[in-house]
Structures are given as C-alpha cells and as structure tokens.
C-alpha cells in the first residue's frame, strides 16, 4: 500500500515537473463554448481554464479525453489534458448536449 502511495506521489511530481504547460482559456457564455474549436500541439500537457460566465453550472465532459468536471455558475475551473496524440477530440456540456466543441491536436512542425 505504502509502495503504491509513494508511486502515486512520484507520478504526481513528475506530472507537475512536466507542467511547463501551454494554456487555453475556454469561456462559457450564453450557452456556448468560446472558442468552440481550438488547436493544441501534440505531446504537450495543456492547461485548460474553463471560465463560466453564465449563471447556471456546466459540466465539461469529454469521452475522448476521459475528462469530466463541473464548473459552477460564474465560476472557473482548471483541468489538464495530454500529452495527446494528434487527432480530433470532442467535448460537450453534460447538462446541455447541444453545447459542444472540439480540440484539434496537431503534431509539431505541421
């Protein structure tokens, strides 16, 4: 058990060390994600700040990224994604499935 915990702690440290992360701000406004589409580089851990300017909570969710997080009304939450392989990754608001967007991950040099 102790071994597992120390491994987890080690993994967390490594992760933090790798956080010379790119940053993207995703705004929720009038039941829309802005930008609804954006690109990030492949192989880099990216910080996404989700800023909810509406009064109702949203749940940022992505099956492609296995991410799921509630952002309160007039609130802000941060998540990290990646490092990702190049491709297209969909996300949506689990409380309003019409509200969606996607992340394009591009290999460096393209």
């Amino acid at each position: 058990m102790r071994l597992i915990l120390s491994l987890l702690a080690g993994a967390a440290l490594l992760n933090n060390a790798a956080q010379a992360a790119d940053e993207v701000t995703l705004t929720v406004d009038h039941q829309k994600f802005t930008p609804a589409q954006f690109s990030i580089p492949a192989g880099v851990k990216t910080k996404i700040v989700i800023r909810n300017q509406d009064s109702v909570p949203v749940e940022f969710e992505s099956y492609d990224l296995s991410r799921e997080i509630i952002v309160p009304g007039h609130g802000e939450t941060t998540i990290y994604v990646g490092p990702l392989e190049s491709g297209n990754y969909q996300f949506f608001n689990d409380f309003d499935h019409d509200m969606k967007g996607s992340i394009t991950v591009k290999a460096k040099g393209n």
Partner: protein
Amino acid sequence: MLATAIIMFREVLEASLIIAIVLGASRGIENRGRWVASGAMLGLMGAAIVALLANAASTEFSGNAQALLNATVLLGAVAMLTWHNVWMSAHGRQLSSEVKAVGSDVESGQRPMAALMLITLAAVMREGSEAVLFLWAIATGGEQGASMLIGGLGGVISGILVGMLLYLGLLRIPTRHFFGVTSWLILLLAAGLAAQAAGFLNQVGLLPSLGNSIWNTSGILSQNSLFGQFLHVLIGYIARPSGIQVVFYLGTFASIFLLMRTYGGNRKKKASL
C-alpha cells in the same frame, strides 16, 4: 422539456442499473432491501452535499477535489462489489438451494450487507450530485423552469423503470444459472467502474495516461448513444480508452476473477469432504 428528460434519464440510469444488478445478485439475502434503501437515502444526502460544494468553491483545487472524490467513490464501489462477489461465490450455492425457504438463514461468514449499502450509496451519490446540480440549474433558470422540471422528473422515473426492468429480467433467470450470471455482471460492472476511476486519477495527474487512444470505436458505437451508454455502465465500454483505463479494467477483472476462483473453489472442496 425532452432534452431535460433525456439528461436526467442518463444521470439516473447508471445508478439505477447498478442497484438493479446488486439487488438481483443479492437475492435470497435477508433484509437486503432495507440496506439498499438506506444506502440510497445516504447517497442522496451525500449527493446534495457534493452538489453544494461543487457549486460553491471555484478553484483549481475544487476541480481536483471533484475528480478525487469521484475516483474514491468509484474505487470504493469496486472494493465493495469485489467483496460481494467473493462472498457470493463462497456462499451462493448454499443460498440458491435455500432461496425459496422462508426465513432461510445462511450461517457462517460476514454477510456483505454493508457492501450492499455502500455500493448503493456510491452509485446514488456519484450520479445524484450531477442530477441535483442540473435540476437546480434549470429550476433557477427562469421562464421554462416548470416544464423542464416536469421533463426532469419524467427522466428520473424512466431511468428507475429501466433499472426495474433489468431487475425483473434477472429474476427470470433459472435458479441454477442465476448466481453465475449475476456474478459475471458484477465482475464486468466492477471492472468498468475501475476504468472510470483510472480516468479521474489521470485527470488529477496522479496516474499517467499511457496513451490516450488505445482504440477508437466512436464511429461504430458512440458513448453518446443510448446503447453505448448502456454498455458503458454494464460492461464498462469506452469508445476511446486511455492505456491506464485498459490496465485498470483488465487488472480489476483478473483480480476479482482469481479471488472468486480461490474462495469459490475452497468452498466446493469442503462441501464434498
């Protein structure tokens, strides 16, 4: 209104299916209804508290706290499902032969009553907190509030109905196959929940992803579709899993399977002596 109904249906479905399987699998255990019901009540209370907290705090920490809580609840459920299944593989045969006897009592061994309660608690709390937040959002959302609330309620009721159908379906399985089927269901369910937990632990940064598209079957069966979600809950289907999710799925599956073999096997030997 329909959109609201569908969202609430989805939120309730997971908890409903899990409870149906657990209720089915624990058939023949006395007082199980009471334990499951108290688990559901505690789960609702927990869900309300989580919803309040999630809506109050708004920092990076709160985001990590949400994911950690989800992972903990899920892994707790996996542990309890394991306990339940191992206990059942040791005592199930005995139970199934006495299942019709009124007031039958199975001697020996700690009964997994607390497990039943905690599994229900975990299932209700996890999905419930999202449902509470969602309903709160539409209730305060203005004009269409009333019709949306009705839609939401309709969604909750249909979600529960599907769970009841599954439960009734399980009860129709002939007794001699019954524990075999339900223990497989629980095994797959637990593996799927473990994979979900791995996703949350990766979200927090505690685990590496080990690759983020081990395969991608979104085009064939999207997790957004109803059938996709069904399979997601029942057998842990993930359209585009990360490596760590596959590792957790297979690891959990193998561990529970081996534990069941070990304990179930011992039991049979003893009985034949």
